[in-house]
């Protein structure tokens, strides 16, 4: 049986030479992402904004204008409507109710449901959620903190296991990945809810995964070819791990594609964020984080390396053809 090889054997791309372009592109994209986020803002869901979200399922695609006029006619505040899922479901977002007590919120949910039920026979309620301003502030704060801790924790791990340059380059690459995700949400105006924080943290996890594999290979090659130039070592390492990087990203993307198409609308934003994260993460692993090591001045220090290798009980460094 002839086996599939997505990346041919013994590739020899000069990734390091492209690093000027890569850094430029990365910087430009990051700035665009920041600009988009600042300009458009994020479409925060009820989790982070507070307020009320009702999802109503209709027998067929409902005319949004009519639904809007029904909800507006109830005098419950400015409604934000969105078709979701198979376009049979409408998500209605309303501001937090005056007074904020449960009675008021209940009344609004009832009112909306009754009114829609009368106007559109067969409409059924899917779910609703309300979040008070206090809790939404907390969720925002906790979510931000979680992302921050994840970046710091992983950066520290990389510094502890490797050299400080690996820690810095990894953190830079993660921040880039997260900025891209942020820009994506600003551009598409998808709902940013609590699940997106989970997606962000998972993106960090995967992106790191890629980088650790490459870093690990760089370290190994530094030991193996002690006289080789750092640029060559990095190019060699990235090329050697390229089949794996591409394979793994593809398998995860395949699994995510299944989730995106079949997983239902509740998870759609989450899956979209993950897919984007995997793509950008792969890019930043190949082009950004490893090349950054040169800029940061990583160089092989034979004496230290041998000592470290022997301390770990690994076989001594040797030159192979």
């Amino acid at each position: 049986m002839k086996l599939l090889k997505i990346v041919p054997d013994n590739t020899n791309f000069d990734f390091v030479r492209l690093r000027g372009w890569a850094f430029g592109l990365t910087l430009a994209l990051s700035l665009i992402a920041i600009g988009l986020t600042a300009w458009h803002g994020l479409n925060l869901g009820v989790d982070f904004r507070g307020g009320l979200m009702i999802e109503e399922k209709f027998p067929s695609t409902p005319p949004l204008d009519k639904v809007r006029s029904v909800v507006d006619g109830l005098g419950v505040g400015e409604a934000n409507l969105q078709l979701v899922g198979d376009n049979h479901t409408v998500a209605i977002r309303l501001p937090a109710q005056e007074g904020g007590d449960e009675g008021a919120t209940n009344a609004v949910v009832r009112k909306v449901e009754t009114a829609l039920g009368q106007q559109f026979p067969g409409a059924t309620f899917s779910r609703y959620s309300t979040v008070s301003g206090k809790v939404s502030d907390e969720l925002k704060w906790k979510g931000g903190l979680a992302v921050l801790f994840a970046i710091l924790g992983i950066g520290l791990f990389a510094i502890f296991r490797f050299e400080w340059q690996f820690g810095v380059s990894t953190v830079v690459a993660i921040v880039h990945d997260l900025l891209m995700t942020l820009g994506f949400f600003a551009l598409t105006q998808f709902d940013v809810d609590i699940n997106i924080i989970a997606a962000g943290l998972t993106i960090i996890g995967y992106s790191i995964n890629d980088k650790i594999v490459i870093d690990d290979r760089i370290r190994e090659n530094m030991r193996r070819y002690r006289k080789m130039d750092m640029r060559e070592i990095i190019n060699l390492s990235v090329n050697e791990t390229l089949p794996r990087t591409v394979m793994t990203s593809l398998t995860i993307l395949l699994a995510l594609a299944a989730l995106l198409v079949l997983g239902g609308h509740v998870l759609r934003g989450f899956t979209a964020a993950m897919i984007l994260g995997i793509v950008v993460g792969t890019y930043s692993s190949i082009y950004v984080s490893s090349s950054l090591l040169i800029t940061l001045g990583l160089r092989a220090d034979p004496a230290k390396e041998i000592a470290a290798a022997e301390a770990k009980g690994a076989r001594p460094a040797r030159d192979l053809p």
Partner: protein
Amino acid sequence: MLDFPRWKVVSIFVVLAALMALAIPSFLPERITERWPVKAPRINLGLDLAGGSYLLLEADTDDLAGSRLETMRDQVQAEMRRNQPRIEIGDISTRGGQLSFLLRDPTQVDAARERLLAITGSGAGMTGQRQWDISVVDTSRFIVKPTQAGLQQALDVAMETATEVVRKRIDALGTREPTIIRQGTNRIVVQVPGLQDPQALKTLLGKTAKLEFKLVDPTADPAQLVKGQAPIGSQVLKYPGNPQGIPFIAVKRSAIIQGSDVVDAQQSFEPQTNAPIVDITFNSQGGRKFAVVTQANAGKQFAMILDNEVISAPSIDEPILGGKAMIRGSFTVESANELAIALRSGKLDVPLKVVEESTVGPELGADSIRSGILASAVAVALVVAFMFVTYGRFGAYANIAVVINVFVILGVLAVLNGTLTLPGIAGFVLTIGTAVDANVLINERIREERRRGRSVLQSVELGYKEASRTIFEANVTHAISGIIMFVFGSGPVKGFAVVLLIGIATSVFTAVTFTRMLVVLWVRKNRPQTINI
């Protein structure tokens, strides 16, 4: 490399089979597993899959501090007046979170301090810390201030009772398997699977259900009442159903009887009018008190007060000796029943407010399960096919590992009594995608070593050895983000993190140890000179 003793092979199979077996009960209907002699481990479905209501309740701590201060004021007033010599106090206030009052006779400072110490306790509580700080300013003004420790302890006690009361009230509604957990210092999480309309539940939890009976003060002037002024020793309360026309009434400050004296409350109907009422039964102490007061005050009116609002004010026609009473008011059957439940379960010392709520309909939940299962199945199929066309036999080994891993994760989740949420299903799909990463790393390494001209045996050995370190490091960083998600995440995100973390742990075992065993068994048997990878 080929050294893979039989006991190791056997134990790997036993461990995997056992973990997978633990997942079986979750696939069987509950009515079957119920009849098993031992309790079968089951995976719970989260509310987003099962449908139901989630409520986050928050206690109003300011209200608790305020009512605590008021109780202290009443105690101080009573204590100073009770014993001889009477200590006259005035200018009493509870503003600014502290109690302050003035002694009419500054020479009584020491006596007053002694009495204060008696009621505030010297070193109260389990921690032995003072609950109140007492200080004297300008020789005759006393300031009694609650200490932080005292407030904390009071909140703790109030939350403990509140959790209990919430549980009783929810149980009384007849819902199945509610989860009620205290969270942090002043919150309670309530999850009720299958509940579609949390309206009744929220109304019930929103009631503090503080019941008091107080005598009505007939001397009050209606014109003064409207302005909120009551005669000395009395207070003005709202009375929406007052037959006299104004929605206020004056009652004596001290209560005849309180909700804590109630042992039972039932909704029933008034014999003559058939109107819904609530029958209550007092404990023996309360019954005695009620008998004494109704004997002494025949012909007068008393007010039934719920949460500082008068619901009715019947007149005492004859002494009530049986320890029973009925509460009339403008009730419907439902509202009378709610009040009965609230009275039975006791009062909340601190009002609770819903700060977060979500309800998922059963249809959406069922949809989510269906699409989740479908997406997972397709994801497995795609990944399995991709791995096979890329790595052939070695891909097939990885695929066996992936499928086993899916069931192992379910088994571990069941043992941990974990909850599967919709993001948890996403975690599954991701784990499927990444579990094969370890095999990709190994197989790519084997390919590389083969290209370098090593023998089959050497390549396989080096592939597993060199890749293992990388796999370990990659999984640690992965676990870091998973743990952070678990610690900071709430509800569904936690569910995601749990699946992810279990997946990381089990996939290392299945993808590395288990596939290595399969490869070794094959190589040992066939001694291949060349491999297709």
